[in-house]
């Protein structure tokens, strides 16, 4: 699994929730979706990308969701 693909998938999720006029609700929605549907290793890879490459390619609302809900989203490192 390459990080470009994860970034692209996360951005798609972000775009759906971005419609919500309440930015905090959108951020929670993104985090909830990632937590409930993505394997921990995929979430951790995205967080590592946020840390290592400043989340290059991520739309801002996804970056915000990752930062706001880091603890909830952190997972095991494993699958690249």
């Amino acid at each position: 699994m390459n990080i470009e693909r994860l970034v692209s998938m996360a951005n798609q999720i972000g775009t759906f929730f971005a419609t919500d006029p309440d930015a905090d609700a959108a951020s929670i929605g993104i985090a909830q979706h990632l937590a409930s549907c993505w394997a921990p290793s995929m979430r951790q890879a995205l967080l590592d990308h946020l840390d290592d490459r400043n989340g290059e390619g991520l739309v801002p609302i996804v970056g915000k969701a990752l930062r706001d809900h880091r603890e909830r989203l952190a997972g095991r490192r494993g699958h690249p």
Partner: protein
Amino acid sequence: MSMHSHHDRGTPARVSSRQVTLSIDGMTVTVPAGTSVMHAAAEAGVDIPRLCATEQLEAFGSCRLCVVEVKGRRGYPASCTTLVEEGMQVATQSDALFRLRRGVMELYISDHPLDCLTCAANGNCELQDMAGRVGLREVRFADGANHLTEAADTSNPYFAYDPAKCIVCSRCVRACSDIQGSFALTTTERGFDTRIAAAGGDDFLASECVSCGACVAVCPTAALMEKSVIELGQPRRSVTTTCAYCGVGCALDAELQGDRVIRMVPNPAGGANRGHACVKGRFAWGYATHADRITTPMIRSSIHEPWQAVSWEAAINHAAAEFRRLQEKYGAESVGSITSSRCTNEETYLVQKLTRAAFGVNNVDTCARVCHSPTGYGLKQTLGESAGTQDFDSVMQADVVLVIGANPTDGHPVFGSRLKQRLRQGAKLIVVDPRAIDLVDTPHVRASQHLKLRPGTNVALVNALAHVIVDENLLDEAFVAARCEAEPFAKWRAFIADPRHSPEATAAVTGVAATELRAAARLYATAGNGAIYYGLGVTEHSQGSTMVMGIANLAMATGNIGRPGVGVNPLRGQNNVQGSCDMGSFPHELPGYRHVSDEATRKQFEAAWGVPLSGEPGLRIPNMFDAAIGGSFKGLYVQGEDIAQSDPNTRHVTAAMEALECLVVQDLFLNETAKFAHVFLPGASFLEKDGTFTNAERRISRVRKVMPPLAGHADWEVTQMLANALGYPMHYADPAEIMAEIARLTPSFHGVSYARLEELGSIQWPCNEAHPSGTPTLHETEFVRGKGRFMLTEFVATDERVNRRFPLLLTTGRILSQYNVGAQTRRTANTVWHPEDLLELHPVDAEDRGIRDGDRVGVASRAGETVLRAKISERMQPGVVYTTFHWPGSGANVVTTENSDWATNCPEYKVTAVQVSRVEQVSAWQQQYARFSAEQAALLKDRSGTKAADAPV
């Protein structure tokens, strides 16, 4: 004539609030008003002789054999067309009636061959029975004109038409029109010259006949007869089971001689099919005993080495050892499983249980990932339950039907016929589809609106429909206020009212004129009961889940949910795709759609299964592929799926398969995926095992074993052996025990058991303390989640867009005679109708490229290129091309991309930007595929091993 015909009451049952009491042969009978005298007599145990009448068809009154006497009336009325009246006194036996009936029979037999002893219908012929009933002893007119020398039409692969044996009762013509709705059969000429003919061709095969078999089922003689019966003789016993093809889930009777299937006939009591079937379920079951079946377990260390046939014990132990080795070396999460939507609920449940309890991971997924996973997500978010809301009977109460991205007459043909019946009664139809599917304009059915949208613009269209409903005050305000959450609705109302969602604004995106769209929205919202049926044309998009939510919004906004005749109805693809999802096949959900992170649910399963369970979601199928290519996912157990053919971007999938160190495939055949396998475990067809399937209307139906498993074990037994070899004990005696565990652990299944299924025939879940007989209609008084939730559904254009290099949009689908990857139907005579996948394109696009019908054309996308033959068709709109994926060598999925639904990763099969051009030879991928397949065939042929390998563990 099926073995069930003996219980036929001659004309259909009627439902009425008014009861009528009459006397038949001195017996008092009370029946609903509108009932025929023939049917009433049957209720009283009096079987009136008949030939043209059958319970499955409306009365016709042509044979005159069913005449009766009615006190106070002159003449001898036909009991099939005479309706009961209060106080009526009917006599079914008298000397006059005896003479009349015998005279009628004499005339029939004067033009019928007297070859009963060698006739295929011998012993099961209504004409023969009636001749006996009326005491026919001589035929005085045998030397007159007759049709006895007319040649039989044997063109259809499954049944023959022998006009010499036809009595022109028109049952077949009426079955074709009234039940199937094809109107392919007709009567020609008049009087003595009247004959039955298939329209639109010189013979049955070339005609418009769709080979549903309804005509054969109702034929009272051997005029229309299954070739299998002609060749093998009449069946002696019958076992009721459930079709293993599409999500309609037809109840079928396997009629047998010993363990040999002679024919499959639809069961009239079937809740899903009401006595009808299609060319696949009715006839295409020969794959079960095809020579390609592999019945010996095999192993090999590399996919470039010959297979070694081994015992079940050796194969299972080898697979288990490999999975344990991989988990030790690469970590627990390095392995996973894929459950099958073609296998039973019990088998699917065991595979996910093995994954969670024996592997200790949630890396389990199912083929719903690539079809209806957005349905599960979208309906759960809005309505609270990941399933369709109605039963199929519901369509008969619909006033307007909105069919979106589905082609029921091909994909779900028995439901398609039912829908056409309702449309012929006057219900309105709106079709939303880029192609002109058959329903748009078919005999006696024409859509009021065909919204021929551009692929990839569903959400813009559904938003525009909702906009009109809000804009023109067509909302069901009372329903919304009572049944839906107020705040999300207020948010949605403001969102959808924005002019950017108006039909006038979206027309440029969707290609649908605003006037047409407004008319469709008004029709749906105001015609009475509005029902939505949708298929993969909704889900297989980058916004598949958004579209499902948009559909649910539409139904809630108009109050079209919670009663018969309305609802949101996903037409599920495979026979048990609903069941496989129900059984916990998704990596984030335990059985019953309960999230793995839910502490209480997990503890319940941990207590029952005796192991700790992970509370984190596992990998989905595309995640598994990516992880395999990335090097962290190494072992996969695939039961009854062919991901190497069905999943998008074939080269990506096969790269993932090649990266695995242990691929275990359990299947009937060495399918495309098995060519990459290291362990092959022989599967069992639906004829070889017990279990249950759950269809698109949540109907749980029994699958019953009619023959022993060819390889010695049903699939559930194989999974159980694998679990035991992995060190996790499973000791189920039979599938009933597995269902008992499912029922114990799953609230919506609490009331389900094999005993209850025997009692009720089938059960629509939820079936529990609150609904002991099941639930035909969901959300009747409140939504499963309490209040319905409107969701915001902004249209986001897919990344897959046309450009100079790829100026056309490819959309893929399926056709009537073939089923998904074709592993089953390609091994039947159905290939006569579809010997290869074709590329359909509009005449304008063909002309621009100098393409003629039948030319070889290259289809190239950013993912890959394949070559198909062209079929020029005005079904298509300019700019859109279409193909099917039933033949692996066609490489349809070499072209599709890994673009997927934002919420579920369901692939965007319906939108791929491509270029099409004339070519002279197959593509590089196809050449490579042919070489690889030849190599795998040779490795299979060269397999080593002994007969002893077949011995069961």
